[in-house]
């Protein structure tokens, strides 16, 4: 297990959220969509210009921009 920022995850890689460092509105928006510590997800893919990123999480698909993913720390295999 290693901890990285969500931005650096590869397509189709799985991970588990360990921390959300965003505060204010961004933090609120991230959390209300279920991106809280302990949640497992996988990277579904990225838009044609590599930003935003699409995640598969708790049975639905969620998108966020790379600079928003920077605030989320993830534990991944290997």
């Amino acid at each position, binding site marked *: 297990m290693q901890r990285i920022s969500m931005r650096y995850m590869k397509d189709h890689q799985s991970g588990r959220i360990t921390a959300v460092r965003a505060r204010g*509105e961004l933090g609120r928006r991230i959390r209300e969509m279920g991106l809280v510590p*302990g949640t497992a997800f996988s990277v579904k893919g990225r838009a*044609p210009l590599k930003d935003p990123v699409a995640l598969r999480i708790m*049975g639905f*698909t*969620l998108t*966020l921009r790379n600079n928003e993913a920077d605030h989320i720390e993830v534990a991944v295999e290997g």
Partner: protein
Amino acid sequence: MSQTIALAGNPNSGKTTLFNALTGARQHVGNYPGVTVEKKSGRYKLSDQQFQLVDLPGTYSMTAYSLEEVIARDFIATEKPAVVIDIVDAASLERNLYLSLQIIEMGVPVCIALNMMDVAKTRGVRIDADRLSELLGVPVVPTVARSGKGKKELMKAAARVAGKTSPPAAPDISYGADIDQALSEMEPLIDAGGLLAAYYPARWVALKYLEADKQIVSAGDAANRQLSARLQHIAGRVEKHLNHTLDTYPEALIADQRFGYIKGIIRQGVIHLDNTENRLFLSDKIDRVLINRMAGPLIMAGVLLLLYHFTFALSEIPLIWLENGFSALRGLVDAHMAEGLFKSLLISGVIDGVGGVVGFMPIIMFMFLGITILEDSGYLVRVAFMLDRVFQWFGLHGSSVMPFIVSGGIAGGCAVPGVMATRTLKSPKERLATLLTVPFMNCGAKLPVFALLIAAFFAYNKAWMMFVITLISWGGALLIAKLLRITIIRGAPTPFIMELPPYRMPTLRGVLIHTWERSWQYLRKAGTIILAISILLWAMMTFPHLPADTVRGFETTRQQIVAEAAPAVVREITPPRAGQELSAAASRLKTRLAAINAEKAQAALKHSIAGRIGVSLENISHLAGFDWRTNIALVGGFAAKEVIVSTLGTAYSMGAVEAQQSAGLSRQLADSPSWRPLTAFSLIIFVMFYSPCFVSVVCIAREAGSWKWGAFTMVFNTVLAFILAVAVYQGGRLLGF
């Protein structure tokens, strides 16, 4: 008296579909007081009981940071519905329950509709509704909103909840030792002070103080400043402590704990997964193609082009009917009324005004039909996903793409449905910036102006010129959006944290209801104002009349010409008949008489208020190369850009020129000494950027929620367009063009 039932739930949970299934066409669409968010209500009858159903805005949470959330929360707290039906998407239960818990915590009677059970089932998710009901302490009814399955059971359960008199027991969620301790300290204080007791339970108010919820804290301040200060002090203490020990803050911890509680519930035998760990859902398979890095953009371009052609080709047909109808009406009035001011007002002010308003209807209806299908199917949000990166550079949002394209991003659109299409944008700042920049696109009404000028001065390379014009308008619009976002609409970008909902076949009912609502709203709200402005512009181009002796002068010349002609020739053209073969002498006479009429029209136009404005503006407009004739045409273009070509025709004493048949005017401009290619290019730039037509202005004001922004686009765009046109003209002259 009927009881009120509020429908709450996440966006894409099938809330609106359920609302439509319950109320059918018996809906009323209005606005929440003072805001542009729609309020839909309808009636539902269960045996002999009447219910008033209100569709609250879709939200993911119940904080006070988005307009939708504030509206939903305020409605529940102040209107006190007999029961809140919370629609929960069974396929993503965890996330949906986050909102459910918050509604339950508000201490209102709740009934959960466990929707899309069919989708969940195909995904191998089985949910034990009874177990969930037992754990949450509220009724849970499985439904399939699309087919209406379970809606009767749901309403029965809701009616039972509404009939109960005892207040529902609030769930006992633990938020961890620090928060729990603070809550137990704050709750008795709030209870004793009766703080906001009319609206919220004490524990909920305490939670909001810990979350530093601005709305509740300021309401608390207003109700009891001393108590509020004390509560804020406790909240501040907890915040400092959490920051120090756990590097977090109360609001984040409360959210985390809420999800922890949900996970706890789900683990207690609520969900059974049928070994679907790595199964790809149908939606994901479609996404592999539709948002593929290579194929995605190509398919998107194809879909958008198709939508465009579909809209404009189909709306052409009823548009022609309408135009024929209005011109028949115009002919009827023309034939049966005596010449005079009232007739002119009726024809040029009222009939043309109403015709202008109604003329937009087909395009609005078909455009919204197309957009609603794309939106309801789930594709539109994927377009936003693919293009967000580009729009983000300019301070906009991926969802801005649709309004831009509809407005004429592919030349020939219309800013009116474009402006109305900004409603799909949920982020206020990006939405406003989009609203204010879509009129720079080349709508169908600007095209005849461009065609006229291109034919006159750039005929050697029409297609290339049109391409350059399209590029300039896109570049200009995006750069101005950027400019607005770093000046008057400054602010951090709205997060792109969005759900890509599964693809779904849109329901016919949903699409039709949505399309009708939009079109009706346009007609009702914009129509009346537009008619008034149309009459005002008519007056500006009509008054004051030419002095009597000038009119007599034209009449004398006219009579002289007739007197000089042979009587047989005069008989040949009185009364005038269409499609008649004329002798050479008669057709010469007819041309001369038409020339006199055109000259009189030119003189009348120059004499009118609009004409005087045009003449007086020549002093500054010559900097951009425009003479008074062009100025009048541009003043007229404020009514509708189509008017530019016809007014220019009148100003060049050629009579009113039909936009589609401007070859004669085009030759006239090409031969005129005051025109050269540089003048034409300067005018193209000006027409592209100056004030939108007043129909668009009215729509912008309505969508932005304030006339301030309507006035802003008129002034800002015109000043900007003038600066650009002057830069082009003067720069071009220096370079020797």
